[in-house]
């Protein structure tokens, strides 16, 4: 409600409000510009021929627009020793992210459901332990995780990476769903029980259809984290099984030949696009979901 009251037509605007407003918008504009500048430079650079980059200034518009760098990044840039572009790694990332997000979100939803609506002895303790998982830094689990993956025969495989991300993400997804379901009215569950619904039909018919906002939050959160992850990808994959982020690093950090900044920028843009898209299309659900449950009504 605070936002509605902020600029109601009836609000009395005191003297000097015009000036302070100008200052506020000026500052906002400045910071928006600072934030957007790197993106603009990346985009401009990715559409310039290489010669222009070495000759001219970074923020200038391309004199000659070209999509060549994008095609090259996708099809033929060298990743390590292989020069087949980043497309293969992009699809590995898509596959990995899709399954890891799907599984961790689904299991998190069931966890939240059980922890709130089918409470058992020790449920809070278990939840406490799960929460603990949110505070464990990535680095700590690297070596034990490598050992586990090795024993399971999943080392250097996309399946292994999916498993790692699911396990690591469960703490967060469970937390989200538990808190959302904690304020979900128990009377609905009771009504469904009397209507003859059991464990799974209550979950699929009553709870899940009313979980839109929190599913959006969880998917966005997991998608961003998993897609952008570098450490797990770099640690548990090799060569051609690497995800996009690792491949991008290998493209940019080559020490041979002249640096193709335009191709690097295009590759980085390709790597960043999916998360950008998720925010553009899912952002409002994200905000709505984060607010859900925090305010009643």
């Amino acid at each position, binding site marked *: 409600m605070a936002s509605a009251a902020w600029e109601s037509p009836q609000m009395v605007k005191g003297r000097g409000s015009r000036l302070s407003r100008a200052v506020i918008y000026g500052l906002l504009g400045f910071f928006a510009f600072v934030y957007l500048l790197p993106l603009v430079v990346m985009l401009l650079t990715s559409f310039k021929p290489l010669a222009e980059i070495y000759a001219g200034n970074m923020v200038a518009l391309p004199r000659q627009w070209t999509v060549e760098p994008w095609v090259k990044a996708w099809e033929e840039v060298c990743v390590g020793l292989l020069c087949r572009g980043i497309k293969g790694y992009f699809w590995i990332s898509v596959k990995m992210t899709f399954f890891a997000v799907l599984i961790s979100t689904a299991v998190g939803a069931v966890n939240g459901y059980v922890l709130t609506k089918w409470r058992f002895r020790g449920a809070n303790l278990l939840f406490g332990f799960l929460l603990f998982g949110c505070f464990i830094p990535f680095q700590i689990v690297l070596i034990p995780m490598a050992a586990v993956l090795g024993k399971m025969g999943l080392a250097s495989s996309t399946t292994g990476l999916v498993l790692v991300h699911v396990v690591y993400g469960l703490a967060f997804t469970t937390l989200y769903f538990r808190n959302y379901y904690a304020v979900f009215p128990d*009377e609905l569950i009771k*009504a469904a*029980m*009397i*209507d*003859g619904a059991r464990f799974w039909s209550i979950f699929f018919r009553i709870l899940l259809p009313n979980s839109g906002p929190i599913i959006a939050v969880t998917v966005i959160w997991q998608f961003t984290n998993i897609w952008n992850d570098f450490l797990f990808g770099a640690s548990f994959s090799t060569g051609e099984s690497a995800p996009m982020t690792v491949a991008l690093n290998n493209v940019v950090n080559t020490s041979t030949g002249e640096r193709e900044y335009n191709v690097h920028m295009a590759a980085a843009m390709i790597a960043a696009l999916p998360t950008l898209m998720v925010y553009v299309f899912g952002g409002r659900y994200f905000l709505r979901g984060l607010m859900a449950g925090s305010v009643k009504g």
Partner: protein
Amino acid sequence: MASLELIGVKKRYGAQEILKGIDISVEAGEFLVLVGPSGCGKSTLLNIVAGLDSATEGDVRIGGRSVKEEHPSERDIAMVFQSYALYPNMTVRQNISFGMEMRKVPKPERERAVQEVAKLLQIDHLLARKPSQLSGGQRQRVAMGRALVRKPRIFLFDEPLSNLDAQLRVDMRTEIKKLHQRLGATIVYVTHDQIEAMTLASRIAVMRGGELQQLGTPAEVYSQPANAFVAGFMGSPRMNLAPARLVEYADGPALGLALEIQSGDRLKARIPLPAQPAAVRAYAGREIIAGVRAEAIGFGGGRLNGHRRAVEASVEIIEPTGADTLAVLLVGGREFTARLGPDFPLKPGERGEFHFDLSKLVFFDPRTEQRIA
């Protein structure tokens, strides 16, 4: 439609005893209202009947058969919740037919049952809507429709009217009563509102602190309350309860009893009583609690006799309600609320002579608070 028996039902959460052994039997077609202040265990008891909660001890029988081990859906009951508990993602039609769908009733049959109930409750024009598009009263109807459609053996209502505004509550109360008369269904109804209890029930179970205080018809509970708690809880305004002293009093040739009411050093009021049963006479010379309903105190008119005595009182506060006027009187320094005619002439601060109908007088033991009878 079926009978319901609760036999020695106890519920404990750890060391805390929520229900301390409840025995109630409800005949088929009866309308039982469980009433009591919040925390008295009435909702827990209802949940135990529904199977949403389990009794620590005791048995629940529906139609003579124990249902203690049965899942809520197998008990053939339906429940209307305080929040209505309509599934927000489903339309009214889906809400009403969800239970039948779960029981794998074929679709044409479901649709026929939905139509029938919708017509009965006059919600047939709302079937395609979502609960969020309905008003409070409409949601209430849909919740009832969901219960009615399955034709269960017992209906359970958990404070179904407390979320409605005052006017709608009165209307829905009448509708529920009509529905009960038309269907002849067995109903167990939980409320904290004693007016709802009085108007709806064929029998009332008054509860407090996990114990059954009294089980009886509305008339019994109203005029012969089992103890001071029931007397104070039922009725609006509540029954006047005043600590008093029962003294022997020479009334002509016979020796009678009189009631002495005095608070602190205020002027003592002495009211001679008509003949009393032996149990009351045994309290002669001792402290008791006297209970008298507001409508048993009148002003002017009517003839005095052995049961109607004149009592001097001063008027403290006057609350006109339209149909009648409630006046708070001071008798022997104690407050008594009287229900008087709308044309009551006295003003606050004035004294007058009021008539007490002593045939309606009840007495309670000051220690046990049980009625002396």
